[in-house]
C-alpha cells in the first residue's frame, strides 16, 4: 500500500466534489434540513391538544372536586380546553361526544353529577377501612393517534393524583418512584438525532460511491487508473478515505445543528461518535462500490438505492426501537449495519458509554468496513 498513490485518489475524489458546488451544498444542507425537519416535527412533545370538558358535578358545600381537577387540567401545556360545559344541561354530554366525532376535539372528559359526593364517600370509606366504590370520570377519546391518547390520559391521571394528594391528603397506597439510570432529561430528539446522523451518513456515502464508480467504469477512467502503478487496494482505500471524510463532515453538521437548535445532549465522547460514523461511511461506500459493478449506467445504479435504503430507514431503529420491529423482520434488522451504528452512537451520546461498552458495535462496523473493502478490491481484480 503506497500512501501517496492512495491519497492521490482521495484528493482527486474530494477535488471533484469541491468543483461541484451544488453537490457540496447538498452534502452540507441535506443533513441540516433532515435534522431540522425531524427535530421540529417529532422533537417536541405533544402540545395544545384540543379537548372539551363537561362538568355535571353538583359539588358539595366545600366545593367541587371536578372543578379542582379542571383547574389543574387548565395549567397543563399538553392540553387546550376549548370549551367547558356546565351542569344543568343534560344534552351537554351528547354535544361533547359529537365534537369528538366531528374531529373538532380529541377528547371529551365528562365528570358525572354526583362526582364530588362519590369522591367524598370513597374518602370516608377509605379512612374508616371500608371497601371503596371508585368514582367515575368518562373519557370519550378519538384514539386514532395513540400518541395523543396517551398524552391526554397521562395528563388527566396526573391532575387527578395531584388534586387528591394536594387537597385531600390522600396518599395512594403504592408509589412508583422513577429514577432514570440513563437519559435524564432526554427528549425524543435525543433518541433520534443519532439515528438521523447515521442515516444521513450511510445514505450519502452509498449514493456518492455507487454513482462515482458507475461513472468511473463507463467513462473508462477506472481502466486508466488500473493501467497505472496504483493498485486495486489503493483505489478502494483512497475512495473509502474520501467518502468516509464526507460522512464525518455531515455528522459534524448534524451534531452542531442538533446541539444549537434542539439542545441535544452528548453525554459520551464526541470523537467516539464520529469514529462510529466514519466506519459506517467507509463500509457503505464499499457496498456502493460493490453494487456499482452490477449497474451498467447511473440509472441502474439509482435502482439499488431503495433496496438498500428502506430496510435501513425502517428496520435499523432510527425512528423507533428495534423492539418495535415485528419478530419475523428482526433478523433483517440485525443484518443491517446501520442498526449497530445507530445503537452505538445512541449509547455513547445518551448513556455516555465508552469503548468498553460499545466494542461489539465497533467490532461489527470494523468487520463490515473491512469486508466491504476487501470484496471491492477483489471485484476490481476479478474484472481483468
Amino acid at each position, binding site marked *: 500500500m*503506497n500512501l*501517496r*498513490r492512495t*491519497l*492521490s*485518489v482521495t*484528493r*482527486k475524489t474530494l*477535488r*471533484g*466534489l469541491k*468543483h*461541484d458546488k451544488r453537490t457540496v451544498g447538498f452534502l452540507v444542507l441535506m443533513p441540516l434540513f433532515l435534522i431540522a425537519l425531524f427535530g421540529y416535527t417529532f422533537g417536541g412533545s405533544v402540545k395544545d391538544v384540543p379537548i372539551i370538558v363537561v362538568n355535571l358535578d353538583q359539588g358539595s358545600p366545600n366545593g367541587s372536586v371536578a372543578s379542582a381537577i379542571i383547574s389543574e387540567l387548565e395549567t397543563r401545556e399538553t392540553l387546550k380546553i376549548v370549551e367547558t360545559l356546565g351542569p344543568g344541561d343534560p344534552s351537554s354530554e351528547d354535544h361533547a361526544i359529537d365534537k369528538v366525532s366531528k374531529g373538532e376535539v380529541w377528547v371529551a372528559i365528562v365528570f358525572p353529577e354526583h362526582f364530588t359526593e362519590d369522591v367524598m364517600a370513597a374518602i370516608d370509606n377509605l379512612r374508616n377501612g371500608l371497601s371503596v366504590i371508585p368514582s367515575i370520570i368518562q373519557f370519550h377519546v378519538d384514539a386514532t393517534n395513540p400518541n395523543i391518547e396517551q398524552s391526554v390520559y397521562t395528563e388527566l391521571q396526573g391532575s387527578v393524583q395531584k388534586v387528591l394528594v394536594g387537597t385531600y391528603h390522600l396518599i395512594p397506597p403504592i408509589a412508583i418512584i422513577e429514577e432514570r439510570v440513563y437519559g435524564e432529561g432526554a427528549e425524543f430528539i435525543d433518541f433520534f438525532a443519532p439515528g438521523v446522523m447515521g442515516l444521513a451518513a450511510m445514505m450519502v456515502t452509498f449514493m456518492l460511491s455507487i454513482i462515482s464508480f458507475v461513472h468511473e467504469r463507463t*467513462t*473508462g*477512467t477506472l*481502466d*486508466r*487508473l*488500473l*493501467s*497505472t*502503478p*496504483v493498485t486495486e487496494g489503493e483505489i478502494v482505500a483512497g475512495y473509502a478515505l474520501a467518502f468516509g471524510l464526507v460522512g464525518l463532515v455531515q455528522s459534524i453538521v448534524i451534531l452542531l445543528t442538533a446541539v444549537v437548535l434542539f439542545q441535544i445532549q452528548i453525554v459520551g465522547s464526541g470523537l467516539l461518535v464520529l469514529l462510529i460514523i466514519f466506519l459506517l461511511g467507509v463500509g457503505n461506500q464499499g457496498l456502493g462500490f460493490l453494487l456499482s459493478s452490477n449497474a451498467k449506467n447511473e440509472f441502474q445504479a439509482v435502482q439499488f438505492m431503495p433496496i438498500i435504503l428502506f430496510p435501513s430507514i425502517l428496520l435499523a431503529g432510527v425512528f423507533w426501537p428495534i423492539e418495535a420491529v415485528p419478530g419475523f423482520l428482526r433478523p433483517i434488522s440485525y443484518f443491517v449495519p446501520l442498526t449497530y451504528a445507530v445503537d452505538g452512537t445512541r449509547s455513547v451520546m445518551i448513556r455516555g458509554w465508552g469503548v468498553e461498552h460499545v466494542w461489539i458495535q465497533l467490532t461489527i462496523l470494523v468487520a463490515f468496513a473491512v469486508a466491504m473493502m476487501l470484496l471491492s478490491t477483489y471485484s476490481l481484480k476479478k474484472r*481483468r
Partner: protein
Amino acid sequence: MGVAVEDLGSNTEPLAIDAKGLRKEFEGRPAVSDIDLRIPKGVLYGLIGPNGSGKTTTIKMLVGLLTATAGTASILSERVPLKKKLPKIGYMPQEMAIYTDLTVHENLELFAGLYSIERSVFEKRETELLAMIDLAERKDSMVSKLSGGMRHRVSLACALLHEPEVVFLDEPTVGVDPELRVGFWDYFMKLKAQGRTIMLTTHYMDEAVRCDLVGMMRMGKLIAEGTPEELMASVSASNLEDAFLHYSKGAVP
C-alpha cells in the same frame, strides 16, 4: 508476415513488446485470436483495421487490463500483467478517460501522484506537455468546459506525463484538428527519437504510412504485418488502403 522485424533494431536488443498466441474470448466468442507480436524497442507500430477488429482488446491485454484467454505477452522482458515495469508503460484509452469534474492541472497532478513523480519534475513536465497540446492557458479550466479535441489532448498528456518507455495510444488523433494532428505526430517522432516504443491504433491511412511497422487486423486476426512499403509492394498496391482491402479478401475464410 512479419518479414521486416529483423530489419529494425538489432536482434540482440530485447523486444519492447513480445506476444505469443495472444487470444481473448468474451463469452466463448473470440475477440482476438492467436496474435503474435515482436516489436523491438524504439519502433512506432501502427495497428489498423475496422472497428471491432480487436485492436483495443489487444492493447488492453498488453497493458494488463484484460487477462488473455490464451497465450502470453511480455513488455520490456517482464511478463504481463506487469508489476516492476508498470511505471514504464503509458496508456491512453480510446474513451477520453479523464476526469471531467477536475481541471486540466488537477488531472495531470493525479497522474503525477499515481506515478510518484516528484513535484519539481512534475512542474517541468506539465509545462512542456501543456505547450505540446497547446493548452497552457487552459491549465485551470474544468475539463467539462473543454471541447472534445481538447479533452483528447489532455488525455494524451496524462499518458505521457511519466515519460514511459513503451506507450500504447488507442486512437490518439481522433477528433483532433489537422493542424494539431501534425503537432502530435511531431511529438510522436520526438518520443521515438528518444528511443521510446509506441504502439498506436489509427483509422487514418496517412498516419499508418508514417509508422515503422503496421499490423493489419480484421475480425480478431492479424492478417498482415510489415513496413508500409512492404505491405504495399507485396500486393502491388499504390496505397495502404488498397493493400488492406487486398489482404482482407485473402483473409476471408
